[in-house]
């Protein structure tokens, strides 16, 4: 009875009869989804949005539940692990006084500006590193080395050169983000199938046209991955840079808030700070990188929608 055997491959699907087999398998089978072919017929709009929104919310709820349980069990003293409610109160206090918007605005706008400048510098740098052998040999390792320098190392230099200004902060951010984005682009370009630049060449593309029409788009998936890491670097560097000082001109950002919490060992403040930073991180990922990635991969047929 071969068809009762495990190995017998039998796929059965009928149009529109509820969740397709593949989908159910994917949800139940966990790791087996590794092999699941793309789900058959299209799903409705509502269900697609639900599929995108529910899992992260579920994860968050689960996390808070565990937290509340640990707190309720009182294994650790209150001042070390505050209850979710306490955090909620601190957070609400920030919202009520409007301080949260100032904190977010100060940090996010700096990070975004810094990131955009970093992108503008890192892109040509990455192209040069990837395609001009002597540049790569000369400064390639240095760029990777720079990446591993902690941002705080630049603080003294930045303060001495640029004083207590936004310029200092941007310098620290740039030194964090530029090498990372450039390296991402280099990695992306290195992985381009060699045939594609050759196609560009035989079509008579010059260096710039080649970069614009072939290298950059072809490297886009890897470049995006580098940009994501670069964003993480610039955001982290910003947190370090914001500790330099706070003055009316500089304004208070999230880094300063977190630091205040830490220098008082005020766990509710620290956790609120962490959550705010995380919210920004997750928000940027969901609003910027995830859609970009999706479009990029889909256009190339690299991901099952």
């Amino acid at each position, binding site marked *: 009875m*071969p*068809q009762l*055997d495990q190995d017998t*491959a039998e*796929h*059965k*699907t*009928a*149009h529109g009869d509820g969740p397709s*087999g593949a989908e159910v398998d994917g949800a139940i089978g966990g790791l087996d989804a590794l092999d699941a072919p793309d789900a058959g017929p299209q799903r409705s709009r509502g269900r697609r949005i639900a599929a995108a929104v529910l899992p992260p919310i579920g994860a968050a709820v689960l996390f808070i539940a565990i937290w509340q349980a640990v707190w309720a069990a009182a294994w650790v003293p209150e001042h070390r692990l505050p209850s979710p409610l306490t955090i909620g109160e601190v957070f609400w206090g920030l919202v009520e006084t409007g301080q949260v918007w100032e904190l977010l605005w100060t940090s996010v706008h700096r990070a975004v500006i810094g990131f955009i400048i970093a992108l503008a510098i890192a892109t040509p740098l990455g192209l040069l590193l990837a395609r001009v052998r002597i540049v790569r040999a000369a400064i390639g390792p240095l760029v990777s080395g720079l990446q591993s320098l902690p941002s705080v190392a630049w603080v003294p230099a930045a303060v001495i050169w640029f004083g207590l200004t936004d310029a200092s902060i941007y310098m620290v951010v740039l030194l964090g983000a530029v090498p990372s984005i450039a390296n991402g682009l280099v990695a992306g370009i290195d992985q381009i199938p060699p045939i594609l630049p050759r196609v560009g060449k035989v079509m008579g593309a010059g260096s710039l046209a080649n970069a614009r029409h072939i290298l950059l788009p072809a490297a886009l998936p890897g470049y995006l991955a580098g940009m994501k890491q670069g964003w993480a670097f610039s955001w982290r560097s910003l947190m370090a840079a914001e500790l330099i000082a706070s003055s009316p001109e500089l304004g208070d950002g999230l880094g300063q808030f977190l630091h205040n919490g830490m220098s008082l060992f005020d766990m509710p403040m620290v956790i609120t700070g962490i959550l705010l930073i995380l919210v920004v991180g997750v928000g940027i990922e969901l609003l910027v990188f995830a859609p970009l990635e999706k479009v990029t991969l889909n256009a190339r047929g690299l991901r099952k929608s």
Partner: protein
Amino acid sequence: MAIALENAVQTEVAVRLEDLHKVFGTGRQAVTALDGIDLAVRPGEFVCLVGASGCGKTTLLNLIAGLEQPSSGRITLTTSRPAVMFQEHALMPWLTVHRNIELPLRLAGVGRAERAAKVEELLSLVRLEGTGRKRPHELSGGMRQRVALARSLASAVQGSADGKHALMLMDEPFSALDAITRDLLQAELLRVWRATGTAVVFVTHDVREAVRLGQRVVLLSSRPGRVVDEWDVDGLTGSDESAAVDTIGAKLREVISTHAAA
């Protein structure tokens, strides 16, 4: 009960496709690649699929291999896992030729020595002795195709080892080869087929090849893909063979021109 009944009916069938539909995309962009395919392949049968470029041959093989889900319809295999040779060579770029061919054997847990022997045998079968240590990017297009062929044969031999009927799905396996090499490999393929009793579904765009190799030739129409005709071409030789080639070629031409006109 239904199962037992089906079983009795199906013992003579390796692959059964029933009213198979496949639509890519949704809404206005939707492309109906296959539109109601019914087809049965007997164990050990050599079936050739021919049809215009883009008519859905590759899609059909993917469905049989379980790589895509049909939009509707039903596929039943009674064989062990089919061995597939893709239209693109699909070699692993990081593995040498030797290791590429070895991969299905490794995955099946074949011992080292046996693997090495098998790979050597397959390499000489596809006339690539001595290239085992090269990487895919150092090969010519035709050489890559032959490595892919060797790999799928390794996979087929392995698959058939479990006592069930075996099945091979081959998508234009000789398209990048010169006439002479192709002749040689056609003969090898037939030899392997006869020796192992594997059922073969073979896609080609060369009617002559289809008639020479196949026991049955199935013609697909394009947009939407349907089975328009079938010919039994088992054991034809000489003028019978060229007559069949001409018939099928004429029908193919007719199908394509109706499509072009539509």
